[in-house]
């Protein structure tokens, strides 16, 4: 009996063992993965952007190792640039959408990183535009002093010098000879002849002047202007005046003169 039970259990165990035996494993190599083929795809362009950077567009030619079968219009590459701390700039491209495999085929594609784009620090372009600022000290009005300057022009000192004024010749104009009455003129002519001893026909009266009797320093007749230049002294101030006739000699153009008033 026990032998029969042992055989039965052994059969059950064998049955269970056979039922739960693992499935066959086959290598998928060569079946599911094709050997990759390589093709150069369009260049990726990386451009840097930034507010304070002058970007120097640089293109990086890069062969993209992608399985030919994986290339399809749905693949989109986006170039990105990064500014990291310090002077490190990095650029890379990332694949944002690609169908790598389709039913029955498992494939993969590696996207290699882009070379660093050629970039220059922009500092050198801005060196001439650097500005500096510094704080001005505030005006200390509280302790400021005000000053008053004399703007009024003071009264000048005055001096007296009558002598200086006397040195300047006085220019006398002849009285209007035509305004002198004929009788008076005849009397002046007689006086002139008497004083000079000249013939009246040889004399041409050119002026009749009033000059001070006293203080006369010099008398000159300017034939071009007809003015009599006299220089007087202080005694002339209160001196009475006399009439002087000035005449020219026709024979030699000499000037003669005489007082014509009767004392």
């Amino acid at each position: 009996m026990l032998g029969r039970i042992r055989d039965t259990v052994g059969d059950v165990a064998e049955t269970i063992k056979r039922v739960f035996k693992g499935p066959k494993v086959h290598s998928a190599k060569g079946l599911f993965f094709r050997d990759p083929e390589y093709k150069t795809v369009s260049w990726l362009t990386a451009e840097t952007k930034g507010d304070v950077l002058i970007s120097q567009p640089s293109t990086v030619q890069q062969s993209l190792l992608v399985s030919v079968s994986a290339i399809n219009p749905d693949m989109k590459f986006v170039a990105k640039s990064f500014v990291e701390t310090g002077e490190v700039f990095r650029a890379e491209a990332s694949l944002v959408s690609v169908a790598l495999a389709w039913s029955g085929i498992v494939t993969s594609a590696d996207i290699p990183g882009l070379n660093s784009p050629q970039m220059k620090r922009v500092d050198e372009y801005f060196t001439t535009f650097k500005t500096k600022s510094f704080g001005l000290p505030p005006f200390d009005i509280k302790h400021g002093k005000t000053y008053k300057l004399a703007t009024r022009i003071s009264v000048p000192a005055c001096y007296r010098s009558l002598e200086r004024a006397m040195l300047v010749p006085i220019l006398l104009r002849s009285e209007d000879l035509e305004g002198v009455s004929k009788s008076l003129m005849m009397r002046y002519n007689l006086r002139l002849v008497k004083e000079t001893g000249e013939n009246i026909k040889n004399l041409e009266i050119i002026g009749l002047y009033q000059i001070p009797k006293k203080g006369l320093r010099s008398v000159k007749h300017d034939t071009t202007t007809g003015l009599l230049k006299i220089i007087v002294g202080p005694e002339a101030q209160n001196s009475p005046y006399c009439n002087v006739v000035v005449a020219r000699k026709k024979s030699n153009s000499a000037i003669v003169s005489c007082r014509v008033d009767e004392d």
Partner: protein
Amino acid sequence: MSEETRLAYYVAIKESASYLGGLLMTNAQGIPTDFRYTEPITPTKLQSVLYGKALEPHLKGEVIQKALMKEIKTPPDLMFVQASDLVADFAADTNCPILAVQRSQEAPLKEQGAINRTSSREVLVQVGEGGHPLRVIFPHGVAEPEQDAALQKVVEAGYHMDLVEPMERALEALRTLIQPK
């Protein structure tokens, strides 16, 4: 016009940066009776800036003229100034008419003493018989009656002497002060 007639000729000139003035007093015949002059006034740079264009009129019309008039005890009957200086604000307390006289080339007026008013400030006046009339110019603001009173004196004084000539003499005397010796 009496023997006591006193005519004043006021001149002020600028020499380099300095101003100086002179006052020539004459009698009715034009004989000098007094001559006063000021020391040169040299305004400071600050004064020049602050006074601006008013500096010269102020100096001539106020400072120098007042200083000279103070020296004259009795006010003159007439005070003659240069026509170009009439823009100055002459002190109102001169107590005598202030005017400028110039020779003119105008035709003689009818008779001695005749006047021909050419503007509110300018008058032609016949001071002698025959000859060209004198041009008399008054400062701003002199009323006509005051002008007429002054013109009366001008006619009287001009009968005896050439009223223009002493002004040239006063200038000449002043220039001798600044000429190098």
